[in-house]
């Protein structure tokens, strides 16, 4: 029998979003935070470049400009009311983080230091603007640590290394979650009035990824299985600069500090007319990733391989500053101070010293713009009419508010985490004050326990890692920077086969204590689900928009497709449904950078 715990609210996930929500919700409600990792090991800690907020600490800026950039970056798919909340609240929230002790870098005037980032511009001049508040290239680390520290201070209840495997939903109410205590293998039920999912991304669907091994799409998959739709899953961001083959991220901050992309002919190709003649290397991520892909396809990858060079050596950077007529010059020490971790990564993993040599980079699977649909208060929405599922919340990468639309701007995810994490936390605490604790249904954990028994005792002889690898290969081949009907059909067929193979997956570890064999097999099921939603949603959208770039439909089609996809699981099949995009001040127009 699972052990039962009772709380007002349960937050699943202890990354930036989960911790921010916990901090606010626990002020007035009795909250438990469940995380399959120790909180400080969440992938928010890997975020490098910065958090976007129009503080205007060094040059003119405004939240309206930030909104404009976000909407333009999203290829007009973002909901503009939500974007305004994001950019306005960003300013207060970043200041608030500073008040919590977050050690931002400083400008000589003592204020928080900011730098340029892809897609962030001055709306009047179209030139890049310094908007990314940062702490060297470990901004996410500082956010994660600071929030965790504040949670310790405020005595938040943590259940570390508790792996959530199911949501308890009865009709249109949620009543808690089912989790496995990893250390003992025991099942626990957390009975609560409200539940929040803040489980992060699902980048492990792809082979070359900046995402952690733990980012397996548990949250979206569980939600889907419990009748909640997933929104805009076809939009998955490929970050242009991952370390070749490894996928480890090289922050856009490198280009923010002046780094440039170079092809085998020594050209700074982003400056070409067909890419981004105005802001060049600082164009939006989808644009840069496509450019790299096309350069490589045209045979201009370095040494004929599938990568290009990212060059941040002072000589190159200063050369291009001079060409661009900028006064700024950088030196070795500056790079070491502003990008110490990047330097460490490339030295460790490539033996390349970035102040002396260029780094080999290729696009890497990075960020899911889609996810569990919510409103700006984190309340989960069930359909195109925006019906709320009372008591169920989502925040962070797993949620789709949608402020990122078809393509997220760099630095906006961290902003999203803290802004919507906070709003969701506050709303959830309020909800708990008025809501009643509804009884647990009988056998609340039975279904998922049976599934685990099935996996544990299965004798099909298929190895989980092989299925996972094949899925990753297929998705990388067929549903990545560019896709077509053919490739997506292929992916869907592959996934069907792999799903059958998944039913035959068997494991070797039959024990209870730290049985990662078992948990990895279960996670694979989640990955397969999210992969399938991605391919199916993509196939159904015959246009190119943001990160969803199709070779067979190369144009954006605002007339028919300026709308959000909702994927509902129904029995063994699915149903697609579409939701209006909230427009506002910024009318859709062609995107030029």
């Amino acid at each position, binding site marked *: 029998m699972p052990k039962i715990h009772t709380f007002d609210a349960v937050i699943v996930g202890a990354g930036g979003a989960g911790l921010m929500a916990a901090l606010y919700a626990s002020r007035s409600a009795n909250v438990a935070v469940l995380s399959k990792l*120790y909180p400080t*090991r969440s992938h928010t800690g890997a975020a490098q470049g910065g958090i976007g907020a129009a503080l205007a600490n060094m040059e003119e800026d405004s939240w309206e400009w930030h909104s404009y950039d976000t909407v333009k970056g999203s290829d007009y798919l973002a909901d503009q009311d939500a974007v305004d909340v994001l950019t306005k609240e960003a300013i207060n929230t970043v200041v608030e983080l*500073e008040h919590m*002790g977050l050690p931002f870098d*400083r400008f000589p005037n003592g204020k928080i230091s900011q730098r340029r980032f892809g897609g962030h511009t001055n709306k009047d001049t179209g030139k890049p603007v310094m908007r990314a508040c940062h702490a060297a290239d470990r901004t996410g680390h500082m956010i994660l640590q600071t929030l965790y*520290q504040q949670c310790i*201070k405020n005595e938040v209840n943590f259940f570390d290394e508790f792996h959530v495997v199911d949501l308890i939903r009865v009709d249109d109410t949620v009543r808690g979650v089912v989790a496995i205590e990893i250390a003992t293998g025991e099942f626990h039920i957390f009975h609560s009035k409200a539940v929040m999912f803040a489980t992060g991304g699902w980048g492990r669907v792809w082979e070359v990824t900046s995402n952690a091994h733990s980012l397996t799409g548990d949250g979206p998959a569980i939600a889907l299985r419990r009748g909640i739709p997933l929104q805009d899953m076809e939009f998955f961001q490929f970050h242009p600069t991952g370390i070749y083959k490894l996928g480890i991220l090289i922050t856009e901050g490198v280009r923010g500090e002046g780094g440039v992309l170079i092809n085998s002919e020594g050209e700074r190709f982003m400056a070409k007319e067909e890419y981004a003649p105005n802001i060049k290397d600082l164009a939006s991520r989808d644009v840069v990733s496509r450019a790299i892909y096309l350069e490589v396809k045209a045979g201009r990858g370095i040494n004929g391989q599938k990568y290009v060079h990212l060059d941040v050596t002072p000589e190159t950077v200063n050369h291009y500053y001079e060409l661009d007529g900028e006064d700024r010059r950088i030196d070795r020490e500056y790079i070491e101070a502003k990008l110490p971790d990047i330097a460490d990564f490339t030295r460790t*993993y490539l033996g390349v010293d970035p102040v002396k040599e260029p780094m080999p980079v290729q696009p890497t699977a990075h960020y899911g713009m889609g996810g569990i649909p919510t409103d700006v208060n984190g309340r989960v929405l069930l359909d195109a009419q925006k019906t709320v599922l009372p008591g169920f919340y989502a925040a962070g990468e797993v949620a789709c508010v949608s402020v990122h639309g078809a393509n997220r701007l760099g630095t906006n995810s961290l902003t999203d985490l803290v802004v919507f994490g906070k709003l969701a936390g506050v709303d959830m605490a309020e909800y708990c004050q008025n809501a009643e604790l509804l009884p647990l249904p009988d056998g609340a954990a039975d279904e998922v326990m049976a599934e685990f028994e099935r996996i544990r005792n299965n004798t099909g002889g298929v190895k989980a890692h092989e299925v996972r690898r094949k899925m990753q290969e297929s998705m990388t081949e067929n549903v990545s920077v560019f896709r077509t009907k053919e490739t997506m059909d292929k992916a869907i067929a592959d996934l069907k086969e792999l799903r059958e193979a998944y039913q035959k997956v068997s494991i070797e570890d039959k*024990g209870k204590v730290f049985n990662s064999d078992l948990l990895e097999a279960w996670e694979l099921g989640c990955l397969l689900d999210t992969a399938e939603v991605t391919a199916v949603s993509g196939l159904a959208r015959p246009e190119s928009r943001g990160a969803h770039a199709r070779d067979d439909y190369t144009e954006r089609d605002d007339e028919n497709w300026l709308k959000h996809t909702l994927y509902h699981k129904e029995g063994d099949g699915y149903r697609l449904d579409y939701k209006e995009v909230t427009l506002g001040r910024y009318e859709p127009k062609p995107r030029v950078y």
Partner: protein
Amino acid sequence: MQAQLRIRRYNPEKDQAGYWGEYTLNDVNPNDSVLDLLHRVKWEIDGTLALRRSCAHGVCGSDAFRINGANMLACKTLVNRLGDGDMIKVQVEPILGLKVLKDLIVDMEPFMDHYKSVMPYFINDDPPPENGRERLQSIEDRARFDDTTKCILCAACTSSCPSFWANDKYVGPAAIVNAHRFIFDSRDKAPEKRLAVVGDTFGVWRCRTNFNCTNACPREIEITKAIAEVKNVLYTGEI
């Protein structure tokens, strides 16, 4: 090349005591990390192997193990750093001084308790600036504690310290690093409370300047220096 792994195994549900598991892997690339090798053992040879890992590039702090005798992160240790030639020997053990729960997994709670004991959170109850903006800080003041903000709580340091092996009441280098992070932050108002903890019997005085911690730290934090700086504050009463 070929890799011969010796991995310290222990399953509390089956084994009375720990033992060495030996595994041979072929087609190892010199650029593979030890984590890659451990994954291969787990996925190709023995699914029961238990270890923690997440980010795979040295920023989450999950996989501090004792590799070929010394503490390091498996994901940040490439095979080519352990030797070259056609055959490479890799020995992986759990970190010392914390109870082994299964294979390479140790009980982190005592470590986290020491961390929490130094009040590792910003304390400043003064009202923030009236303009509603950030507190100001000079670049120089910010630089004083930059190094110690990098800690990812991997425990490689504390579990490499002979003083900690000998007596786990010692708060350990990681806790001192995190105390340093706040003691030297000009915005923080509670250095005295933290100094009372790290200045106590089982605080900085147990440090025998052995340097294993500094050498083990995957974030290259100058831990022993930070400890000495804290000691100096305790001698001089000035930060």
